């Protein structure tokens, strides 16, 4: 914006400020008399603007709710997911799954013969992975 343009723009801004000040400083009687002169019912203006205010309240409420939802979603995303499972039941389910896959069963049997079978730790790890994938009945805990 050039200096001249800013000066001109400010000229209108200053006028608007002056008019707004006069409106704010006018007495209630003057303001109500002006409405009457203009054939406007001040109660109708008040009702109309109250509606606008209520719309703003609704909009602000919606925005607040959306922000709260985002916050909860973010908090959930950053929290560790703890899954409780019954270790013995999970192990049984794991064995049953393995048994359903003949190829895998054969491979595991061969590996065991060669002394390369799954350790308890391997099995626990596989059970945990399957639990995370939702393979077992589980009970969520958000703590």
């Amino acid at each position, binding site marked *: 914006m050039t200096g001249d343009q800013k000066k*001109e723009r400010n000229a209108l801004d200053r006028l608007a400020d002056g008019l707004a000040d006069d409106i*704010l400083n006018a007495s209630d009687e003057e303001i109500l008399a002006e409405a009457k002169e203009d054939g406007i019912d001040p109660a109708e203006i008040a009702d109309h603007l109250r509606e606008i205010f209520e719309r703003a309240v609704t909009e602000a409420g919606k925005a607040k709710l959306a922000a709260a939802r985002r916050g909860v979603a973010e908090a959930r995303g950053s929290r560790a997911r703890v899954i409780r499972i019954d270790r013995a039941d999970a192990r049984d389910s794991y064995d049953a799954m393995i048994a359903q896959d003949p190829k895998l069963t054969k491979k595991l049997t061969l590996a065991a013969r060669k002394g390369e079978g799954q350790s308890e730790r391997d099995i626990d790890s596989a059970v945990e992975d399957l639990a995370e994938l939702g393979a077992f009945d589980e009970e969520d805990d958000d703590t």
Partner: protein
Amino acid sequence: MSEMKPAPLRTPDELACAIQDLSNADWSRLRKVAAAYVRNRAIEPDDLLQEAFLRALDGRRNCPVHVGPTKFFAGAMRSIASSETEKRETRPRLVPIANHGGEETAVDPPDPVPDPEQRAGSAEEVAAMKACLLSLFEGDEIAQVILEGMMEGIEGEELRELTDLDNTTYQSKRRLIRRWIDKEFPRGWTS
């Protein structure tokens, strides 16, 4: 040395309660102030007021406890209208550009510094608005002096002295100017 403490603020709920207590005259004031600030701008008085309410309710603008809600919302509208003007000046425009085989209209991306064409257009718009306002008081030299004085930022006693009017007549003239502009531009000024 005394320490400057920030003024205590109303919470959005306190402000909402204060709004519920506004009188009919206060609501009319707010509507008039909205119309004063929407001149030549791409926003309606009601939208300007709603935006001011929204910013107060969502905490983007805070009302000090010692400021009345009517005055506070007048200030909020002033600020919103001012940023609308800035946005308007850097808004992208659809302009035909040389193209090879595609659509002939494209968005001219906004430039933070208005180009000479924009500057000229904007300056013309403002000059037209000023001329339009002054022409409303053709033949009333005193009203024109007051109007020009207000646009120049001359206020109060200084401006009254320029007109040689006594205080009552001066206030009455100012009111006449405001009322005339009100009637001519009930939804904000446009040139």
